[in-house]
């Protein structure tokens, strides 16, 4: 799309200036974590600030993984919970989204409105009774509890996205399958699912990203350090006031950022498309 405007040269310059300043604003905060995690600092300088590095080192990463950083445990827990939550949510919401798309129950509209409303409820409002319910279910201090909580959190958004994408799969294709004697389940798994795959991918990626950063849920649920997730571990390390080893913390932070960053690099389109789909779902 080209504009019909005649851009004066200083207009263009101004625009570039804004974008470059904005980009710099975005990028500057990233300097310190990388500097701190990959280099050694001079003796008398605080590790909290930018410093001129002495030498490149992997030490901080070693500390993070093998030392008191416990990064492996944390990462393992994070991956396990978020992974299973996303997979579970995908299965549940594929079925649910299909039902919402093809079903004609009278209360469908109300149901979809309620699902939308649920997303409005802030987590902090429900956290206290949520804790009590988890206590009843004996899921306190368990990774299963965390995973289930994440799944439930991902469902409303994913249902909307799934329904939206399944809506785009023409009914005729399913009808052809029915004529061939397929059951509903087969229609879903063999006809609709493959065609809605891009949407499913977008939903999965966005949900993964959201769940990966879950901090509040594990905060109230977990008390065994063995079970901590990455954000929680980082947080605990941060509030231990004595002698913070920022090099190691940043190494952990970077390890933690890796999946998000990879997704960003390779699936940016999906991410953006998913965000737009989610917002437009409000229609």
């Amino acid at each position: 799309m080209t504009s019909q405007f005649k851009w004066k040269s200083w207009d263009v310059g101004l625009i570039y200036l804004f974008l470059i300043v904005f980009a710099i604003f975005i990028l500057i905060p990233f300097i310190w974590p990388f500097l701190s995690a990959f280099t050694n600092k001079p003796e008398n300088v605080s590790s909290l600030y930018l410093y001129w590095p002495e030498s490149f080192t992997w030490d901080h990463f070693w500390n993070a993984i093998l030392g008191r950083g416990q990064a492996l445990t944390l990462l393992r827990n994070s991956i396990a919970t978020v992974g299973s939550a996303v997979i579970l949510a995908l299965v549940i919401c594929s079925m649910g989204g299909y039902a919402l798309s093809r079903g004609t129950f009278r209360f469908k509209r109300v149901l979809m409105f309620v699902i939308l409303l649920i997303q409005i409820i802030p987590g902090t409002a429900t956290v206290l009774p949520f804790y009590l319910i988890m206590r009843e279910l004996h899921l306190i201090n368990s990774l299963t509890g965390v995973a289930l909580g994440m799944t439930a959190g991902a469902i409303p958004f994913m249902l909307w996205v799934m329904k939206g994408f399944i809506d785009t799969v023409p009914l005729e294709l399913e009808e052809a399958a029915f004529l061939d004697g397929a059951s509903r389940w087969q229609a879903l798994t063999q006809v609709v699912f493959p065609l809605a795959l891009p949407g499913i991918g977008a939903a999965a990626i966005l949900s993964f990203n959201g769940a990966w950063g879950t901090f509040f849920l594990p905060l109230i649920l977990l008390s065994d350090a063995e079970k901590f997730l990455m954000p929680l571990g980082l947080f605990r390390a941060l509030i231990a006031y004595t002698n913070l080893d920022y090099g190691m913390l940043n190494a952990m932070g970077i390890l933690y950022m890796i999946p998000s960053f990879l997704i960003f690099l390779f699936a940016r389109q999906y991410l953006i498309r998913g965000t737009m789909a989610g917002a437009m779902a409000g229609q």
Partner: protein
Amino acid sequence: MLHAQNRLLLLFLLPALAMLLIFTVAPSLWAIYISFTDLALAGPKAMDYSFVGLKNYIKLFGDRNFHHSVWLSIQYTVYTNLGQFSLGLIAALILSRRKLRGQSFLLAVIVLPMVIPGITQALIWGSMLGAKEFGTLNRIVGIFGVEPILWTRTLPMLSIVLVNFWNNSGFAMILFLAGLESIPNEVIESATIDGANGWQMLVRIKLPLIRYVVMLWLLLNTIGLLGMFDLVFTLTRGGPGNATELMGIYIYNQGFQFFELGYGSAAAMVMLAISLIFAYVYLRMMRVDL
């Protein structure tokens, strides 16, 4: 035939609904009930709690700390919205109509912080906002001759709002970009032919045509900001004192620091009500415009 179909489809929907019921709806309903009791997390009132009617709400009404929290949350939301709207809109306007060099790189960069988890954001900005001359932000403003300060202590609200400008302006930009790109070319062209200059184009043509997207963004953003917890808690823990004790943090403190589940739930209900009021207002505005 259709009936049988629907019954099967309902079965498909069951797992999702069950999960939502157990983990979202039930806690919400229970929260409403708890807010009318004096239940505590531990201690005598954990077992032996009683229904106290509106006592919690009345106490909230007179609780200066809570008022402070609500006011902080509103400020936080308004400032953040203003900043993200401006930055996102300008970026979207620029990126929507021109073929610039490095366009997709710039887009990627601006969107990048959105994928950074909250804790990491807090860690990164801990350094940015650090005290003494070495803190990155201090270094930057030091160029302009400003004294170095500990930003999170001296200007706490500014600090947390600044982080929000950084981390989520990309969201606004994406949505606005989508909105702008969906304006038909003919509209722009005919406006140009009619002699519209840049400012008029923006205010009279583009903004009105994307107002639906803008309101949608405003709705989503506000809801999210009112309930904000993770980032601010990790960055300031609500401090110094209670200078950044947003509603979410206040509720958390009530429940897990003071063990007052009943009171905390009442506060949560009020927060929910405020969110719903905002949502309702936005939805009305959207419908009226349409």
